[in-house]
């Protein structure tokens, strides 16, 4: 039966060839091959499609996400949730493919800022009513919608408070008599000290490029003490040449490059590879975000590593205006509802459940997977890393609210990341980097 209809469809190929222009329109009224979509009758089973960037369902955020899903399915036996997961980079690509063909997903993980903006422009995600998410049940922290709001309309909810820190291996620092850096000068000293001992000072996921962007933003913040400076540059309110903090930050990146602070394989290291270097005790530091809090409680990692895991704020510049408590923080990852959903009502129910403070936020915090974007209660059994991360967030004197690379168009993100990648893999001067960044802004 089904096969026959496929053949029938195949026979109208000729028509399709004749009407090239209408192809995009055809995408929306396709008959998907999912079999169980008789959502009309109330009792029948509903299958929701959930798309996530967390393939590891046995630890960290993936476990937390899966736990909430399992909870929901248990409480709602008429709902089945099909989870599709892909690793970060393939995930982003596949989501674009889904978007371009209007695939009837129900709920998807989204990256706020540039990426979500594209989904919004394609009309692929549903607008949300921010009023509905006020109050006790959701308990979102103030200002967390920034990367999810376009033209004053909200299109997704953040799942975490994301901020950049440095994870470090206490044992490697102690054994080699290296001081945990609090200033950029000390950071370079530490880099040299570890290099001399044949240990990679800092691991970074250079193949993915985006960590370079976060680091540059962090440095500009440390030199200028102004959270908005780099965002203003992207908004074309100022130029990279106009404030010397930009140049100083670029010069420091140059010093980082020349001191070989990153691991040897940094330009081919993806997220997992850079993490492995660090968790296997082969790199002293890892430049990453608060969403990796789960390492401390992940039993797949070596016991010795977990006991020696520490976390520090990004160091200050000796000649800069920024302080240790100026935090590069934003809300990047989140969830959105898909407008081509086949079961919008059921999807909404699950979405609200997922985003409730006592579901995702609580689960993520209690399992030590991440720092939520919602208020959470301390349980007293937090890991040392979690406590430090909480302190860093609570004591922050200022937060940026946006990640610079995601602040412009996707093209801008691509350009700026490539400019940084080029800088780190060549002998380019800091001045050239600045002009490349300016070009990326100008070509938005």
């Amino acid at each position: 039966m089904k096969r026959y209809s496929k053949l029938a469809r195949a026979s109208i190929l000729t028509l399709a060839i004749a009407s090239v222009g209408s192809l995009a329109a055809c995408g929306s009224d396709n008959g998907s091959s999912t079999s169980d979509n008789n959502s009309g009758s109330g009792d029948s089973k509903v299958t929701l499609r959930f798309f996530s960037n967390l393939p590891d369902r046995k630890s960290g955020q993936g476990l937390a996400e899966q736990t909430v899903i399992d909870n929901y399915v248990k409480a709602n036996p008429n709902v089945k949730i099909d989870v599709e997961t892909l690793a970060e980079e393939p995930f982003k690509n596949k989501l674009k493919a889904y978007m371009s063909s209007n695939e009837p997903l129900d709920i998807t993980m989204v990256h706020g800022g540039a990426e979500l903006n594209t989904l919004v422009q394609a009309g692929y995600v549903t607008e949300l009513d921010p009023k509905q998410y006020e109050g006790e049940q959701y308990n979102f922290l103030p200002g967390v919608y920034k990367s999810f709001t376009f033209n004053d309309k909200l299109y997704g909810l953040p799942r975490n408070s994301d901020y950049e820190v440095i994870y470090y291996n206490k044992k490697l620092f102690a054994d080699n008599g290296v001081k945990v850096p609090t200033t950029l000068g000390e950071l370079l000293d530490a880099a040299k000290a570890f290099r001399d001992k044949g240990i990679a000072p800092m691991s970074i996921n250079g193949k993915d490029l985006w960590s370079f962007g976060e680091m540059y933003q962090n440095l500009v913040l440390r030199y200028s003490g102004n959270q908005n400076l780099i965002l203003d540059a992207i908004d074309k309110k100022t130029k990279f040449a106009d404030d010397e903090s930009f140049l100083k930050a670029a010069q420091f990146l140059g010093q980082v490059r020349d001191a070989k602070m990153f691991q040897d394989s940094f330009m081919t290291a993806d997220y997992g590879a850079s993490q492995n270097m660090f968790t296997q005790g082969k790199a002293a530091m890892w430049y990453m975000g608060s969403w990796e809090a789960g390492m401390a409680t992940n039993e797949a990692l070596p016991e010795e590593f977990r006991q020696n895991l520490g976390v520090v704020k990004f160091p200050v510049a000796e000649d800069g205006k920024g302080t240790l408590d100026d935090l590069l923080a934003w809300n990047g990852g989140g969830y959105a509802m898909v407008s081509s959903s086949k079961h919008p009502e059921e999807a909404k129910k699950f979405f609200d459940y997922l985003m409730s403070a006592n579901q995702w936020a609580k689960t993520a915090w209690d399992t030590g997977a991440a720092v939520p974007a919602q208020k959470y209660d301390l349980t007293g059994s937090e890991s040392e890393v979690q406590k430090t991360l909480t302190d860093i967030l609570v004591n922050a004197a200022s937060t940026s609210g946006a990640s610079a690379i995601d602040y412009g168009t996707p093209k801008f993100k691509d350009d700026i990341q490539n400019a940084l990648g080029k800088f780190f893999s060549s002998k380019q001067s800091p001045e050239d980097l600045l002009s490349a960044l300016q070009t990326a802004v100008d070509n938005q």
Partner: protein
Amino acid sequence: MHRVFRNKTAIFLFVAPGMLLFALTFLVPIIVSGYYSFTDTLAPGTKVTMVGFDNYTNLLFHDERFWLALRNALLLGIGFIVIQHPICIFFAILLDRLGGKAEKIFRTIFFIPCVISVVVISKMWLSLLDPTFGMLNKLLDLVGLDSLKHAWLGESSTALGSMLFILIWAGFGWGLLFYYAGVKGISEDLYEAAQLDGASGFRMHLKITVPLLKPVIAVQLTLAIITALKQMETVFLTTNGGPGDSTQFLAVYLYNKAFSASQYGYANAISVLFVIVCLLATYLSNRLTRNDATDF
């Protein structure tokens, strides 16, 4: 000629299904690409604004990454032609001389990498060439050549060379097999005659084998250029075009522009130029090798 060979129904039945499928996967998409290449669409389904030839002028005159990608394909193609193919021919001749069971065994072994999935090959070599735990650097350490150690795929200076090396490793078996087939087709009498004339060894092969292999070489060289131009999977899975575009290729560039950078219109302009470049390269290489078999 028998009229059966003009049977219209039979011709239609023989040709229509294949051509229809071909049109669906190649022609229609290219037409669609052509349409989008004149727009500044972010992605299919978003607002479409016609921009005329803007994408093309930007690509050709303002986009050095595009030209870098082409240059890399050219270098890779030259690498195939200058390094891989002579090696394959050399091995094919040696293999033919070996004879007996050994010939069969080695032929089998040399081909094994060809049946390994490109995903496995890429991930495996990424690990083998890893500067920290990879085999190659450990090997260099072992023989005291640690000054030659590199972050092979992670340095601009060595990345493209490493890529060529991986591709040669993976493609060696195919090249060998085709040249071997060619060598097997050469009559033994020719060699005997040449030996009577006093030619032997290397010079004999240069004089007899290589010229006789010319048709095979011509086809293989065209395929080598196409392979270099179309390079995608291995690059995508190892360096993703980096570091600093040193291993950028058209297919990877276009994929990233379409997906990561949300420049769908621009990516489609790359697609169109990509197709043109591939067809042009084939035409040129056919012209150069003046080969009837692929001359169409």
